[in-house]
């Protein structure tokens, strides 16, 4: 029986712990400085918005950990002493391990903006950030304007959160269209319009220059680089992406790049030390993915794979087809396979948008064969299993659209758009495909 110590109680750390317990009798300890128990980081926004209480973000009841013999330790790890196989905790305690899993997550990016450490300036990542926002922006009297810097997923979450308390928001986005580094332009533009329809002061193509302080050292305004304009505000949200949380490992001897360098077995350069989740950086991206993947799902998958390795079934991290999801205010987004903001060479995009301006899809496909590469769907839910299968089977876009009714995952009685989508497609490619009736047999047949 080994003592496996996991630093970080997020989705990666907890998944690896759960799976180790399923497979073995190893002693497991999870160390976290953030909270006593695992919670869903992606749900923090709903606590501020009043949809849930913090308790509701905890996926397991408190008895779960004892029942599954997973020890929880609330402590801050100062550094890793791998030569003696121990951790140094703040307060001077030393904590021994046999195998160490680093699942330490990310920290919000700061790019050296003047004033970035003032009171009232914050990111949104941790439970502490949530508490800070509650203190900084309890209502629109204490906070009469907020400026959010950085047009990504956390940025728009923070915008939505502040709007829920009727706080006016200015949203500074570096790109000319929201999240255009990831999304095709037409989708970004639809989201621009959606964001504006929520009365957000959306500033596209602008960068933060500096944050100005009042006499108490609190943020009172920001200035914009391009125009020099000064926007008075009480709260500044810095949401320009996240980076692996690796500062504490600087002198540990564990190889670092932007993150903790790992091989496909999720091993670091040091024996018995592993890294998973946001903080792990592959030497080379796997299956065309980026070396660092700061996504809920990939953290979980790394945890699932590493648990096997730690329990004597060496298993590389080998994720399947890419998928992801998000919600932009009232518009849900899912993606299966790869859709790039500009089609990769030899590929093309088919785009369809509904006249209500809140639903659209983009399909990336090979130009010559129309082989299906991936889909972005907004405002329409689609079945993960079918797209995963179709990608494995290498189906053509013609086939995918013909069977699109099978893949629809919207609630019953919702309007269907397969016909619309297909008629646009037939128009564009001179095909005459008719949507096939939904078939349970096809949906549940195994690939």
């Amino acid at each position, binding site marked *: 029986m080994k003592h496996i110590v996991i630093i970080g109680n997020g989705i990666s750390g907890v998944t690896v712990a759960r799976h180790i317990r399923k497979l073995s009798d190893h002693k497991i300890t999870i160390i976290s400085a953030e909270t006593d128990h695992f919670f*869903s980081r992606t749900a923090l926004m*709903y606590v501020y918005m009043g949809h849930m209480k913090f308790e509701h973000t905890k996926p397991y009841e408190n008895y779960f950990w004892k029942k599954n013999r997973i020890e929880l330790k609330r402590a801050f790890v100062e550094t890793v002493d791998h030569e003696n196989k121990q951790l140094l905790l703040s307060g001077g305690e030393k904590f021994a391990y046999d195998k160490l899993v680093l699942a330490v997550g990310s920290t919000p990016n700061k790019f050296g903006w003047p004033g970035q450490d003032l009171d009232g300036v914050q990111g949104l990542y941790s439970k502490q950030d949530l508490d800070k926002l509650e203190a900084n922006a309890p209502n629109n009297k204490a906070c009469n304007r907020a400026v959010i810097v950085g047009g990504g997923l956390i940025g728009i979450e923070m915008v939505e959160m502040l709007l829920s308390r009727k706080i006016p928001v200015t949203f500074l986005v570096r790109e000319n269209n929201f999240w255009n580094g990831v999304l095709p332009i037409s989708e970004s533009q639809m989201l621009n319009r959606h964001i504006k329809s929520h009365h957000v002061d959306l500033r596209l193509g602008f960068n933060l220059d500096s944050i100005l302080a009042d006499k108490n050292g609190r943020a009172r305004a920001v200035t914009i680089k391009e125009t020099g304009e000064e926007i008075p505000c009480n709260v500044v949200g810095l949401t320009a992406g996240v980076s692996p949380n690796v500062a504490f490992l600087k002198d540990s001897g564990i190889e670092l790049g932007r993150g903790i360098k790992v091989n496909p077995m999720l091993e670091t350069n040091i024996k018995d030390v592993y890294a998973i989740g946001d903080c792990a950086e592959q030497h080379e991206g796997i299956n065309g993915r980026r070396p660092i993947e700061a996504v809920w799902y990939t953290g979980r998958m790394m945890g699932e794979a590493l648990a096997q390795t730690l329990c004597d079934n060496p298993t*590389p*991290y080998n994720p399947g087809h890419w998928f992801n999801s998000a919600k932009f205010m009232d518009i849900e987004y899912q993606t299966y396979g790869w859709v790039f903001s500009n089609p990769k060479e030899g590929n093309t995009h088919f785009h369809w948008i509904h006249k209500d301006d809140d639903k659209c899809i983009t399909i990336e496909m090979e130009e010559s064969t129309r082989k299906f590469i991936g889909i972005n769907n907004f405002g329409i839910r689609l079945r993960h299993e079918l797209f995963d299968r179709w990608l494995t089977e290498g189906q053509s876009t013609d086939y995918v659209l013909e069977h699109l009714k099978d893949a629809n995952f919207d609630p019953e009685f919702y309007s269907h758009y397969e016909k619309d989508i297909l008629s646009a497609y037939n128009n564009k490619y001179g095909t005459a495909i008719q949507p096939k009736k939904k078939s349970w047999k096809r949906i549940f047949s195994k690939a």
Partner: protein
Amino acid sequence: MKALTYLGLAIFLTGLTIFTGSIFLGGFNLQEADLTTFLNDKGIENELLQTELKSALIDKEPMGIFDFSSSVRGALQKNNDHFDSLIAEYDAAKEWDKKGAQYQYRINEKDFRAMSFSLAKKAGVGFIVENRGLMWLLTFGLGILGALLFIIPQLKLLGPKGIKNDGVYHSAATNRGWIAWLVLIYLVAFYIVLYFMADYVVNWTFILDPISNALSGNDASQWFVYGFLYCVIMTVMAVRMYIKYRHNKYQIVRTTSVLFFQIVIAFLIPEIMTSLNMPAYDFKNAFPLDYDFFFDWNLESLINSGGIGLFILVWGIVLTLVIVPVMVYFFGKRWYCSWVCGCGGLAETLGDGFRQHSSKKMISWKLERWLIHSVLVFSLVMTLVTLYCYFTGESSFIGIPADWIKNTYSVLIGAWFAGVIGTGFYPIFGNRVWCRFGCPLAAYLGFVQRFKSRFRITTNGGQCISCGNCSTYCEQGIDVRAYAQKGENIVRSSCVGCGICSAVCPRGVLKLENGPLDGRINPTDVLLGNDVDLMTLVNKK
């Protein structure tokens, strides 16, 4: 806009205050002729009782309802005391025949309130009785107007359509604050008075007499008031549902369905049947939720009502034994619990704002299974005893007296559990307390749904982010996330298929659907999206 909602709230509270205050208004002054009619109708020839009632009620100044009620009950009690002492006397003297002869003159204590109600109904005088239409406008009218003024501006105030649960846990009404407790106290008091002291609310029945007369030709009873109020509340709160979920057609269709079944099937048709001299019957109310269907008085009434009575008898049996399970097989228990049922209908309209209070803890699930199945057994034993006694003429079976068990069930389950606790505790324990912990029909439907049904909530592969919205807003206290984050379909006997988990999910993970039984239950450890080999390795059983 905001001002309009405050105005609406003020108007609503005025209507509610007048409605509640009307209990204390008006006088009750019984005429001798009316007393005579009452005594004749009841076949009461007992002279002592006649004298007691007369001296308590006739030729008095008009009284308030509380004085009137206690006068009636006092007279009845004096009558009983007299005969009780005679009984004791004859008992001591061992004069058994004489002792036995006294019992017929006693009035059953259970009937005190009903007699007081009947007399008060004849005795009402003053403003309310003389201005029923005006009183309707000042109570129901203001209530409806105010509530709608409060609700309709939400169309604008909620912002663009979509899930708007902002501030649910910041509001004293929806986060178990002082408003929630006040509502609880009001509702509990309302049910206790309605079930156990109905004579106090006789004024409410005056207000609705014109409507009741138009529908059935009879004056309104307290049950007519309850039924009418139920329909009004559901309709008004359905408007709120239509606005809140205007992006979600499943919710809109479902709300329309419960509204239709409540107003037409549960309320109007029984009233019309009464006007046609038929036994009133709610055609959707299935045994064992309709726990008195097999009570002797109901069977007799049905058997004596000719063709329609027999039809109802057969329908009631077929509904429970055939229609209910077959429909659950095809659609899940949602077809009943959240599309048809009256209790469900109130929960889904009035109760929607409290759905987040159902406990998701494992211990609550355990309690749920013990309680709901016990009630099912209780209702079946009660029915068995009742039917045995009905057919054999015995008064008890396996040592259980039929009257005792019927009465115990009616009070404990029918009144306290389903009414006082089931609805009264909405603001604290959530809107489905009865449906989750108590309803014997739900328990029966649950068996079918769990073991033989095409219904499930499909989890969309690996898309769950464990946020917890689904679990938080599940009114039945199902920890939906526990399944979704494992990529496992939700197949639970208690799920009523309200569809809110799917609605609040920010990532499109949940879908209520009916499909083949194969693969309906699909436990997984490694979710879709990871290494195919690993998934097969770990998920193989």
